[in-house]
Structure formats: C-alpha cells, structure tokens
C-alpha cells in the first residue's frame, strides 16, 4: 500500500509538470493576444504595448516558460493578469468551496442511488422498479442548468424557502447540492440497479436464501457487498463528472468555486490563474482516483497492491 501511494504521488508530480507545460504551449499556440484582450478592441496600440511590457508578454516564449516553471517549483504560480493577486491566494479558497459542493453532491447521489438502486433490484420488474427507472431516466435527460433554474424559481423566488446565490449559510448548500446531486443520483441509480440485479442472480444469494437469511440481510449484506466493486469504480468516475458538472452549477448558483474560476480565467485569458485552476483540478482528480484504488482493497480483500 505505501508503495502504491508513493508511486502515485510521484506520478502526480510528473503529470502536473506535463500538464502545466501542455497548457502553456496550448495557450500560446492558439491565435489571440492576451494584451489585446485586456486592453479592449478599440484601445490604441501604445496601450497594448504598455500592457505587453508590464505583464512580460514581450519576452521570448522559452524565457516566459522557464521563468514560470522555475517559479512553480518554488511554489509560486504567479499573479493574476488582471487583479495582480497571487494565483495560490485566488485558487486555494476556491478548492475548498468546490470540494464542499462536489462532496455533498456525491454523498447525496451515493446515498440515494444505493437505496433506490437496491430497492429497484429487490422488486425487479414491479411498480417500485418502474418508478425508480422513470425517475432515473428523467434525471439523466434533464440538464443541470434546467434543474437549477427550475429549483431557483420554485424554491427561491416563489416559495421563498431557500436562498439562491452564494454560500454564506448551510441553507445556501441545499439547492446547488440537490441540483448537482440529482443528476449523478439518477445516473448511479441505473448502474447500482443493474449491478444489484446481477448480484442477486448469483448462486451464493440462492444459498443465503436457502439458509433462511432474511431478505434485508441477503440484499444489503450479501448482494450489495459483492456488487460494490463495480459501484466503487463508478463512484470514482462519478467524482470526475461531478467536478465537471460543478462548473455549470457554480455559475447558476453563483458558487465561488474552482469551476467558475476556471471558465472565467479561460475566457479572459488570465493565463496564470487558468494554469493554476486547471492544475489543481487535475490534481484533485488524481487524488480521488488514488482514494478509489485504496477503497478497492477494503471492498474486496483479494485486491492487493503489494
């Protein structure tokens, strides 16, 4: 296990450097001039030149790249082109905000899907199963921004039960978490259901039933434990989707998270912030995958990394 963790951490560092180099190359290769974008369409050339000088865009590319990488090694991701704030100061609080949103949404989605998926499999083909299937199909087909806007107007504006924008109290979590979680819950429920249907058809379930084990124990102990391995993989992948989905959710609910920061910095060509945001996004993703691998050994003791 320690070897796994160590090798993954080394991989993370390598992947981080490759990613930063790739982003640097990408954003310098595509057409467009950040100084021009900052100055505006109608700005005189002197203004664009003065921005270029002030922000170091006039340096040769390899000089810009080397000095950037050197600074990253020292833990300095540069300063935002617009606000002149250090990138880490901008990005780090956002990581916590996105983690809180995505974490709660995942927790909600996992709980709902495990319960609904198991019941659906238990009553396979019956009205409960059909109802759950209908719920998950509607959930999968409704884009996050539609659920979000409906939630805002129904619970925020008309019923006035829940606040809409920001994250200053626990009530602020409810709408974005439900919006983001509902889509994932719908997706997971389908998968949990099919894994459980498969597990419930196995011989050891017949044995358990023949031994007279109560149905609740058969489903939630024997079947679920055995169906867990693919489900954990699925949840691991789901974290990626949730992080991706958080970009839209954060925009609709004005959530000050990493996803919104990433989009804004890409649109405004705030290169240092964009590199920082994407870098940390990728690191979170790698860490989550590591966590999933560790969870495998818990779910199935046959899996060993040593």
């Amino acid at each position, binding site marked *: 296990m320690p070897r796994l963790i160590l090798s993954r951490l080394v991989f993370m560092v390598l992947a981080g450097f490759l990613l930063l180099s790739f982003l640097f190359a990408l954003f310098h290769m*595509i*057409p*467009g*001039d*950040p100084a*021009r*974008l*900052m*100055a*505006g*369409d*109608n*700005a*005189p*050339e*002197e*203004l*664009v030149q*003065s*921005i270029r000088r*002030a922000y170091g865009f006039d340096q040769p590319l390899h000089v810009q790249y080397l000095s950037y990488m050197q600074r990253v090694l020292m833990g300095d991701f540069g*300063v*935002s082109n*617009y*606000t*002149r*704030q250090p990138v880490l100061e*901008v990005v780090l*609080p*956002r990581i916590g905000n996105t983690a809180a949103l995505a974490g709660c949404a995942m927790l909600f989605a996992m709980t709902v899907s495990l319960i609904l998926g198991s019941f659906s499999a238990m009553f396979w083909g019956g009205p409960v199963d059909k109802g759950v299937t209908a719920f998950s199909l509607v959930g999968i087909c409704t884009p996050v921004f539609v659920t979000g*806007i409906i939630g*805002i*107007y129904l619970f*925020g*504006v008309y019923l*006035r039960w829940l*606040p*809409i*924008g*920001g994250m200053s109290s626990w009530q602020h979590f409810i709408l974005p978490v439900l919006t983001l979680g509902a889509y994932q819950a719908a997706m997971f429920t389908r998968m949990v259901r099919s894994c459980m249907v498969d597990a419930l058809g196995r011989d050891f379930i017949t044995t358990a039933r023949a031994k007279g084990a109560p149905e609740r124990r058969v489903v939630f102990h024997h079947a679920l434990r055995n169906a867990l391995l693919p489900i954990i993989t699925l949840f691991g992948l789901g974290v990626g989707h949730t992080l991706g989905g958080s970009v839209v959710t954060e*925009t*609709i*609910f*004005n959530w*000050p998270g990493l996803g*919104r*920061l990433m989009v*804004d910095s890409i*649109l*405004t*060509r*705030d290169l240092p912030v964009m590199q920082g945001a994407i870098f940390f996004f990728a690191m979170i993703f790698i860490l989550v995958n590591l966590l999933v691998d560790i969870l495998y050994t818990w779910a199935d003791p046959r899996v060993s990394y040593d």
Partner: protein
Amino acid sequence: MKTKHHSRRRAAARLTGASMLVAAGIVSATAQEGEPQYGGQLIYAQSGEKFSLFPGRNTDNGAQDVWLNACENLVELNEESEIVPVLAESWETSEDEKTVTFKLREGVEFHDGTPFDAEAVAFVFNEAKAQDFIYISLLEGFDRAEAVSEHEVAFHLEAPFAALIPNLAYRPLCIFSPTAYQELGEEGMATQIVGTGPFRHTDWVKGEYVLFERNDNYWKEGLPYLDSIKMVVVPDPSTRTAMLERGEVDRAVSLSDFDIPRLELNENIRVRTVPSTRQFYVVLNHMVEPFDDVLVRRALNHAIDKVGMVQAVFAGSGATVPKAPTLSEGVYGYQDMRQEGEDSIFPYDPEMAQSLLQEAGYEDRDGDGTIENADGEDLAFTLWTRKGSTKGDYQVAQLLQSFLGEIGIPIELVVMEAAAFSSAVSQAPDDAEYEMALLSWGIPTADPDEPMMYFTHTKAWKPAGANRMFFSSEELDRLADAAHTETDEDERKELTRQWMAQLLEEAPVIYLPTLHLSLGTRSYVHGDRILAVDNYPATEAWIDHEEMQRQGISR
C-alpha cells in the same frame, strides 16, 4: 498671468445652478417618497469580476463602480452628459490654453486620514506619466502637474487639448491617496483602493464581493445615507434577476432583456434603462473592393432593418436604433441626426439599397438572385463575429446575414473566439484579412474626442488607432483636428455635429443599434442613479426600512 475663464467653468457655474434645481427636484421627489433614512446595507449584483482595483492598471469598465464609491475625480459627468465639479471646485485656462489651473476643494481627507491637497493631485498625475499608467493616452500632451499652492494645482500641456476636462471625468483618473500608494505599491493597490469617496473600501474577495463602509468624514455633509455597500459578483444574468426578485440583492445591473417585461410587472421592483455609449457597427475593410465605394457602403446601411433588429434581438428594450453615427445620447455633443420622419439613421429601404448598388455598377445580371459586378462575379462576403462577447452579438450577425442575403449579397458567418478575434481585427492594412467584422464601440469618457481622433481619423489606421476600416476622409480629419483643439464649447459642439453629418455622407461602417444599460432596484431603495457610462452612483441612495420589512426582507 493673464487668464481667461474656461467656458466649461461658466458652464459649470450654470450647471451648479442647474444641479441645485435638479437637487431641488430630488428633494421634492424625496418628500413624496419620504424623508431619507440613514443606515442599512445596499447589496448590489454586478456582472463582471476581472478587475484590478488599482486605477492605473485597470482595463475593464466593469470596475468603475468600485472607484465610484471609494475614489473621486476632479470632475464628473452627470446624467445630462455635462461636466460638474467634484474634488476641483473650479478651473481656469491660461491665454495660450497650455496651462489649466484647478482650485481644489478644501477640508477633504483621504480614507487613510492624509489630507487631499494640490501635492496629492500633482503626485497622482506625475506618477501616471512616469509609470505609464494605462490611461495616460487619454491625457494627450500632458507634460506635468504642479502644486501652485496648497489648494491649487496647475496642469501644464504641450499643446491645447479640448478633451482634457471631460477625460478627467473618466473614473480610472480618480485621485487615490499617494501615501497609501507609496506604502502598498501597485500590487497592494490592486486589492485595496484608498480615495476620498463616500464609502471606504474595506474588503474584497475575488469573484465574490467587494465591501464598502460609510466614510464618516465625507466632505458632502450628511452623506452618504447607507452604512455599507456590498457589491456581489453574479456573472449569470438569470441568477442576478432571480436574486433581485427574491430580495437577496437590492439592486442588479445588466438584466436580461427578456426578463425586463416580467420584472416591470413586479410592484416591488423598479426597472430603468438608459442608452449606453456602446453602438454596434460592421467594419468594412476599405482595402477590399467594393467597400472603397461610398455608394456601396450607403447601400449596405440601407439594407439593414435596425428597428426589426432591436425588437428581435433585444426584446425592444435592450437597445435602441442608432439616431446618430457612432455617438449616442450619453455622449457630450450628441445630437439626433435623423431626418424628419426617419426611424433611424440610414432607414431600412432595400429598394434604395439595390438602386444605390446599381448606380455603383452592381446588379443581378443573370437573374440568379445574387448581385454581380460588371465582370459577372458574385458579390459575396465573409462576416467575422464573436459569440457572447457583447450582448446579442451573434444574433445581430445572423440578422445581418439575412438582411444582406435579401438584397442579393450572400454572407458567410465566421464565428471566432474572443482573443483570436481581437487580435485578427487589430492588424495593419497589409495583414488584415477580414472583409466585414461585427464590433461595438463604447465611449467610456463620454466625450467625442476619442471617436473623432481614434476611430475615423486617417492617423488612426490600425495598428495605431482603431480605424480598422482603413478609411480616410480629408474633411472628417479636418473637423476632428479642429474639434480636438477647440476649447469653446459651442464651437466644439458644432464641429462635432458637422463631423456626424459628414459620417452620414461617407458611411465608413454599417451603423447598428446602440445598447441600453439596465438597472433593476427593489422599490424600497431610493435616490440611486444610473449614468450612460455604466456607472450607478449610490452616494444619495437610501433604504426605506419599513417598506423593506413589509416586503419580507430582513438581513
């Protein structure tokens, strides 16, 4: 030193009287609305967030309200597009018009407790020149500023410059505390602004909010009424609207045009719109045939239904038809240039468009519905546009394609990413690859000098200025140069009018609608204003606390 009173000063004196009347108007309106009440926090939803708070390095108009609250200018532009004194009480221009001396308001302090005086003003502008602040190009010919006495500062110019005073009203040219600047440096000032304004800037969390608290030592006695202002950043227009409807914010700007009719039915919300200084236009590259032909350019202008465009793209309320070329209602010297009975300049008339094209030698010769030149080659162009950079840009481009298609000119739309577009339309004539490109022109200084000198002037051909049409007209250059140095107000306005009339003759671009600014406010907020230059002053704003409670909003 022999001096002559600047005509603007006389205007200012007249204006002081006028603004007193306006103030009286406000008072009587206030009496109907109730006496102003002190206290409370105004929460205000803004759309953008990419700003730096340091005025010398900011390139984003969206940040203007930050300075508006905390940092004041020597002069400012009011709702009637007139210059009124703020930190300068009056000013005089020397006989040779190369020195302007400002008499400063006394007894004013910066938020850090240091005095506002001539030394401070001179420091800010001399530093702007020395450090090449981004706005320095607006102070053309500025040599140096000198403190003549404790409350008198002289601006020395290399040549007379008529737009000096109006440009000083541009928000980024506000007077910040030199002491704070020396302590914090540019980097520190990027997150903290220290000025003399009605509110002190106390906190900023990027992408979330900017907080201002009442300046108890503000020089306007009794103001402001509010305890604090919280500007929250809400990029999504639907969310901004929903937050206003729920009362989570008291004021929201840049509302979605299609939400406005619904908001107007809500008795707890007051919606106001005013024309901004931003006008859409299509750049025609005059290096490409047949855009060098004035008849063709006029024909294209007549082919576009501006009224229909305002209805279809902007729901009738988000924009207005162009009533003058380039300048809009908020700009100094603007005049309605429509002929009697016309609904916009270059009114929609496809038949006239076709006959002008025919006169220029272009018509449908083979009956295939497409216009050809004398050699039988089709008249077809590409139109470059962005999508979502400015409200409605892509839809406007689609309508242009459809209107020009109707008179027989097929248009291919090319949608480009914002940074790539900006760079591609900023090339010198030999490198410019566009035929037509959809852009918009805003005038943050609300003074015609900038468009006259940087938009249509021959000296302003890209990359030097913003003349990306590569258009040249001796008469327009002459009028612009004359207005640039003309310090008599009436003369300058007349030159501006002649410049607009000449633009209508020569039609260097296709003129399109002017965008509106919109402001939605909960009805318990009184006394807040909206200015055409995208400013929303709240110095005199106050909250009716009882009404706020009645609407079920408590914080």
